[in-house]
């Protein structure tokens, strides 16, 4: 009967109920979307950027404090031999990678015409590399270094240079002896990685090609390691540091390598807590006010029920039942709107602009919905309404039967 009475009262006081219902629903929609975006940002870092950059990275130690850490004098000699010595069951994938600065130039047969050019970072990788997943997955034309041949460019760089798939591009570098060198390479793949920074700054060749271009046989910029369990990275980094001691190498785990980005992720988590608190205050105020108004309008009715034998705690339970119903239904409605929005955005993506890339994220974020977030928001919305109802029920139950009955 209490549940029925609560439901009937909700329907009878439809306008006020709609305010409470709407406030809860809007709060849950916003929290679901905000939670999805923040989870998407975190996921970009934890599931995309960090695995692409490696859980553990080995580089030349001297590069750390160098004015130009990309100088070719900071390559690891005998990188392939060193790679072969890395045996550890915690390691899933280990690869050498040669990063080098280069100028990509449009090939022009007519020397009178000025060739377009753009300065980029070349990534020399194995054709079957497990890294650069966003590039491999983002190939829109051609394929990723077929047979180790050619060069993969982003569509945006290809457009800047006026080149296309099947054409060629001149790759100009200076080798380790500071001698200029170039190769004209066929364009075998075009990609959209989803990251503006990556698209505008990176091209990919095979490591063999990269070594030829910079005259660095058997040398690499770094050894990237992916682990079966990312949480073992600090322990493995410490073990490898001991193993490679005296070789002038530096071993860095992802927690230290991405400390700044991880701090931002933690900051976003804290920010989300503040967003929740904000909604507790704003939505809570609206809901409390509406529930209080509804309760005050029915003070005489509560007086009647008390006069015919309803106990104080039963009155409180009745008001709380109403709040729980409104909060629960409002939260469900909020989830019914919020979850599909997040799911659509998780496919389409959300462009947050290139500024986000300077703090370590990609410009296009793919929000993620998690069931835990859904349950948390459902409980959160219901609790706001319950807390407001609890306050209203306390106010009502403090009055004596006579005060309730004589309320005008």
């Amino acid at each position, binding site marked *: *009967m209490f549940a029925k009475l609560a439901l009937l009262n909700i329907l009878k006081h439809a306008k006020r109920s709609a305010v409470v219902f709407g406030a809860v629903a809007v709060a849950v929609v916003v929290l679901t979307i905000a939670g999805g975006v923040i989870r998407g940002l975190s996921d970009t870092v934890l599931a995309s950027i960090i695995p692409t950059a490696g859980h553990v990275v080995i580089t030349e130690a001297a590069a750390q404090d160098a004015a130009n850490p990309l100088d070719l004098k900071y390559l690891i000699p005998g990188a392939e031999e060193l790679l072969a010595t890395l045996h550890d069951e915690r390691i899933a994938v280990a690869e050498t990678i040669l990063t080098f600065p280069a100028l990509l130039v449009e090939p022009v047969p007519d020397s009178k015409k000025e060739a377009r050019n753009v300065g980029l970072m070349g990534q020399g990788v194995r054709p079957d590399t497990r890294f650069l997943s966003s590039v491999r997955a983002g190939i829109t034309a051609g394929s990723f270094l077929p047979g180790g041949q050619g060069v993969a460019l982003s569509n945006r760089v290809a457009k800047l240079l006026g080149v296309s798939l099947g054409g060629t591009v001149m790759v100009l570098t200076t080798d380790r002896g500071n001698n200029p060198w170039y190769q004209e390479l066929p364009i075998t793949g075009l990609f959209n990685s989803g990251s503006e920074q990556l698209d505008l700054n990176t091209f990919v060749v095979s490591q063999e090609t990269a070594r030829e271009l910079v005259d660095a046989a058997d040398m690499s910029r770094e050894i990237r390691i992916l682990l079966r369990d990312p949480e073992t990275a600090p322990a493995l980094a410490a073990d490898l540091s001991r193993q490679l001691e005296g070789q002038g190498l530096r071993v860095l785990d992802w927690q230290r390598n991405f400390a700044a980005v991880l701090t931002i992720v933690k900051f976003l988590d804290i920010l989300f807590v503040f967003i929740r608190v904000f909604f507790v205050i704003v939505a809570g105020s609206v809901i409390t006010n509406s529930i209080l108004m509804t309760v005050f309008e029915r003070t005489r009715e509560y007086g009647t029920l008390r006069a015919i034998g309803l106990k104080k705690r039963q009155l409180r339970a009745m008001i709380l039942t109403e709040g729980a119903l409104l909060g629960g239904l409002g939260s469900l409605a909020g989830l019914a709107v919020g979850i599909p929005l997040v799911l659509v955005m998780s496919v389409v993506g959300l462009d947050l602009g290139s500024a986000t890339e300077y703090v370590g994220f990609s410009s296009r974020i793919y929000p993620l919905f998690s069931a835990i977030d859904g349950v948390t928001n459902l409980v959160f919305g219901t609790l706001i309404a319950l807390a407001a109802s609890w306050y209203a029920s306390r106010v009502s139950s403090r009055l004596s039967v006579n005060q309730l009955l004589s309320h005008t």
Partner: protein
Amino acid sequence: MPETILAVRDVTKDYQLGKTVIPALKGVSFDIHEGEFLSIVGPSGCGKSTLLNLIGCIDKATSGSVTFQGTDLATLNDDQEAEIRLNQIGFIFQSFNLVSVLNVIENIEFPLLMNKVPRAERRAIVDHLVEVVGLGEFIRHRPDELSGGQRQRVAIARALVNRPRLVIADEPTANLDSETSATVMEAMKRLNEEDKVSFIFSTHNELIERYARRVIRLKDGRIVGDTAPGEH
């Protein structure tokens, strides 16, 4: 001599309005016996509703005692008071005070639900009372679909549903026309005579006063007469 079910002894009730103390009752004493059909009469503001509220466990006296079936009501906690209002004393209000979102049956059975009476038993009790107060055709109607007299008969049925020993009615006919008032009073009198339920009701209508077998007259918070109707 019938059993005394209620004893009011030297009861006073003061209301505080800012710094002003307004005495509503000034030392009222009387007894109510089983099966009585008693009327409290007097002009507006004489303390009738205050006295009924004290007897009905709705308010507390400033001094003196109200003893119901041997229990001093002043000693009861909130839950015990609610228990008495639910099972021992029925209350009928001047303005009916029905729950607007519930229909006739639901309004009447609400106190039974608070007592966790099984559904079948509930239905039998409510059906009987609906017949007694003559509302058989209106069981699915909400209060706003009923006339004043019908609403008051729903309120009477609700007051009787847990078989209380005493029913208090605060000016039950004040909002009704004379014909409907007579119907309501007849219903109350019949229940008093057939089921031996004690009734105490307030009125300032002399025609209604005549239904009572005993009349207590109040004036300025004091009892100025306790007689059979017509006696002075």
